[in-house]
């Protein structure tokens, strides 16, 4: 019994060590950013700062339009999340609640669309957007993602689990399609909608491949692109400016995560259990 306890404790200690190892690179970036210049990049590194220097943040704002990039990220990710959730809810409602010609064929079409990678659609879409003069605009980055096949699929599955008797009861009371969707389906499908929103926000907030092709002017870039643009502008000695930019982006994310950890982890893990 005691041996088992000791074994458990040793395992916990090993896990905590692994955890520290995992977050060490992030902490190194945070700490290095706020150290005085002569203490940065010392080896072995200084893990607990005793003196502080916040000037590196100022240099970020000098080099890139950080707040503009933050705004771009918020607008693009916000429009995609709201738009894709809306189109998915409407489509999932039709697929789960109505009978019509071509229902199965259309559903299979959407599912097949899941298999078509961005890397193939990006070329014709780029050519078309170029002809329409939309390259280097926010629209070129959010328009293609206002539909999400995975979202339609997940919400349809969830809506199928909501008893149809509820719809029928409301219909007897004279409720129309939209009223039923708004008053009955939406509130009951809330967990799935919240999970989908978190998923979409996380994916498109961090997206790199697509925006990297379409956006090029500094004041049009999203945060991930702005971050990487610092890499070219800076010599090795100015790594601290990149560190400051990473800190500005990642530290607030860490705070949000610490508060909403349970909900975030559960909603993302649920995608796997159902899959």
């Amino acid at each position: 019994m005691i041996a088992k306890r000791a074994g458990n404790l040793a395992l916990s200690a090993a896990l905590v060590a692994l955890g520290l190892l995992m977050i060490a690179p992030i902490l190194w970036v945070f700490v290095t950013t706020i150290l005085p210049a002569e203490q940065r990049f010392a080896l072995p590194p200084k893990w607990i700062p005793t003196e502080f220097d916040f000037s590196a943040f100022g240099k970020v704002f000098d080099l890139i339009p950080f707040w503009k990039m933050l705004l771009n990220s918020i607008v693009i990710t916000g429009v995609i999340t709201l738009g894709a959730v809306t189109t998915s809810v409407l489509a999932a409602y039709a697929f789960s609640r109505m009978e019509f010609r071509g229902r199965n064929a259309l559903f299979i079409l959407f599912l097949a669309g899941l298999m078509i990678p961005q890397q193939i659609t990006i070329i014709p879409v780029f050519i078309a957007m170029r002809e329409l003069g939309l390259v280097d605009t926010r629209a070129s980055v959010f328009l293609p993602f206002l539909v999400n096949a995975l979202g339609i699929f997940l919400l349809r599955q969830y809506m199928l689990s909501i008893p149809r008797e509820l719809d029928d009861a409301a219909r007897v009371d004279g409720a129309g399609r939209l009223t039923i969707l708004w008053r009955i389906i939406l509130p009951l499908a809330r967990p799935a909608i919240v999970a989908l929103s978190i998923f979409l926000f996380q994916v498109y907030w961090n997206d790199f491949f697509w925006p990297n092709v379409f956006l090029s002017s500094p004041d049009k870039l999203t945060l991930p692109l702005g971050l990487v643009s610092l890499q070219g502008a800076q010599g090795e000695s100015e790594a601290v400016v990149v560190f400051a930019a990473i800190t500005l982006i990642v530290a607030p994310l860490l705070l949000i995560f610490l508060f909403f950890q349970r909900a975030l982890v559960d909603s993302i893990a649920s995608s796997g259990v159902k899959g």
Partner: protein
Amino acid sequence: MSSGATQIVGTSRAVGGAPRRRSPRGGEKLTPYLFLSPALLLFLTFVVAPLFGAIALSFTDWNLLGSKRFIGLDNFTRLAEDGDLHKALGNTLIFTFWSIVLHVVVGLGMALAVNRQMWRVTRYFLRTAFFFPFLVSWAAVALIWQYALDPNFGIATFYGDKVGIPGLADGWLLNKTYALPALILVDLWHTIGFAFVVFLAGLQAIPGHLYEASEVDGAGPVRRFWHVTLPMLSPTIFFIVVISFIGAFQIFEPMYIMTRGGPDGATSSVVQYLYETGFRNYEVGYAASIGLLVFVAVLAATLVQFLLRRRWVFEG
């Protein structure tokens, strides 16, 4: 809504049909299509049409300037002979193989280790430390590790060298032997948290009575793992294999940001090569044929995985 089939579209009153079904404006037959139309129009515009556009492009030598010229299957013979592409494909396959193996083995190992009684604080810390990197963008992850692996001031270099990990002092990313393994490990660091939480949720969904029953039968921990945990977890393992495959086969960011495919092509990937071809050299015709190759490969591999699923996934 079988009653809808007997209604006449466009009339303001339902003709025939079940009286039970009230149809206020008579458009009941059209209603489903109205609900579907936003998703369907966007889907046709941004997924289906571009797919056919890419197929058409792949038969041309267009470079965004001048006129498109039909060149038959030339792009596809070029695919077969392009040494740089084959190098990128080889790197991608190595990356994909290790990505799948490591995500399953390490993710499951971490989940098994965490799935036990422990202090709440410890559990909270572990979930944060293991999962948080997954929420950080590739842009930030790639830059953090580029500096952490820097031969002069990187902490991974400093501590790794101390415990005897080879090659770090010369810079892993600058070395042909170590650059690709380095990117495999950075990717693992970035996304292992996802596999971990999915496996943990899978483990917690296994009913406890199965373990109790096998214990009564005298099975030890090793037998319990092989005969209860693994079969019950096989759908979860399958999910992680498929997800890891799709993500890894399309890997782009670490190659693009950290190494630009170098040194000497040692870390090029198919999608990075597609990007260079299409959006740096503007050979969009050839890039489209590479895109088709990615599409067909992902499609084929996923189909094979689903066919194999019947063999080894235990549907409880």
